[in-house]
Every structure is written in structure tokens, then in C-alpha cells.
């Protein structure tokens, strides 16, 4: 079974803090994704990585950066956390076949509260 894990289920941070969210997958997937989930807005893609050290901005990258130094690990960084970044963050991974058909496997999510 594919396993995607996220470093924290719940996180409370203060405004202005630097926040790291970690995601690890164990299936040698090329693609990794960070989404933000908000009630009434669904899931929105923050960043996408298709290989080590390769990344692509998603729909809402402002205020976020990412790092992928190893294939299995994809980190989301909030350089200076703000209250409007309070949200549920979901990580996902998938194979890369070039056809867009692959299943995305999701982690359990990190619920971040910025005070």
C-alpha cells in the first residue's frame, strides 16, 4: 500500500513564525503536491514537484515556498506565517506517466492554526 505521511496532524503557530510542513511518501513516486483545503473552496494547489529539486507553482503559491531535496520528501514552507494561512494542508503523491491518469495518494493532512 502507498503511504503518504505528514509530520504533524495539528500545528499552532504565531504570526510571523517560519513554518515547515513535511511530507514523505514511500512508493518512489515522481510527483508530489501540496494543497490547501478550506471549507467552501475545495482543494487548491499550492505547489507541485515532478522531480527532485524541480517545482512548479500552483494556483495559490503566494506566501509559500517548497523544497524537494530527496525524491521521497516534499516540504512546504511558510516564510512568515499569517492568520489567513490558517487552513488544512494536504500532501499527495503520484506516479508520472505523462498521461494525467494516475491516482493521487493523499496524506492525512495538517491542520494549521496561525494566531
Amino acid at each position, binding site marked *: 500500500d502507498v503511504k*503518504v505521511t505528514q509530520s504533524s496532524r495539528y500545528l499552532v503557530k504565531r504570526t510571523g513564525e517560519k513554518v515547515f510542513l513535511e511530507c514523505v511518501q514511500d512508493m518512489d513516486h515522481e*510527483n508530489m*503536491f501540496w*494543497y490547501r483545503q478550506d471549507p*467552501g*473552496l*475545495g*482543494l*487548491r*494547489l499550492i505547489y*507541485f514537484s*515532478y522531480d527532485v529539486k524541480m517545482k512548479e507553482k*500552483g494556483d495559490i503559491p503566494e506566501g509559500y515556498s517548497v523544497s524537494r531535496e530527496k525524491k521521497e520528501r516534499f516540504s512546504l514552507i511558510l516564510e512568515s506565517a499569517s492568520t489567513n494561512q490558517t487552513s488544512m494542508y*494536504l500532501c*499527495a503523491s*503520484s506516479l*508520472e*506517466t*505523462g*498521461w*494525467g*491518469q*494516475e*491516482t*493521487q495518494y*493523499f*496524506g*492525512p*493532512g495538517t491542520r494549521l492554526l496561525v494566531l
Partner: protein
Amino acid sequence: AQTVTQSQPEMSVQEAETVTLSCTYDTSESNYYLFWYKQPPSRQMILVIRQEAYKQQNATENRFSVNFQKAAKSFSLKISDSQLGDTAMYFCALTQGGSEKLVFGKGTKLTVNP
């Protein structure tokens, strides 16, 4: 830009009955895939069913089936013999040919009542 619209924020159904969740989408691509994902309360999101745009036959997975109307850009999910474990948020999603990125709808919260 690709868009996915789920017009039913919440739905409920009695156990053992059938329910249909609606999804419409917009894309200019000729090749794409459509998905339904399920997110049970406090549990991980999982794939329910997938449909390739080129295939006319509607996908089926056990009690889950889709009604794919390509010309109308409609992709509804039918759940037969609903079970309490089907209670979840359901998200419709769209990828483009050659891209693994997903565009999600806003979700439909389905409650199955005993």
C-alpha cells in the same frame, strides 16, 4: 482555464438508497481524465472512480458508477445501496492530458442516515 463545479454543497440519503452527486466541468482539452475522490471524516482522501474522456463507456466500481456526458461536460457519481461508511466529502476533479495536476471542485458533503 479548467474549472470544476459541484452545485450541491450538501446532500443526504437513507441507508440502502441510491444517490447521485453532480459535477460539471469546463476544459478546452480533447484528452483529459475525470475523477471522484472521497474524504471520510478525519480520514485520508482516496480515489473512488476514474473516467478517461476518450472512453464512451461509463466507469463502474462496485456500488459506484458515473454518468459521463462529454458534450454536456457533465460527470455525475451514482452511489447505489448507500452505506453508513459512504458518509464523506466527495470531490470531483479534472486533469489535462499529459499533466498530473488536478483541478478540484468545492466538494459535496454526503451524509448517509441509518
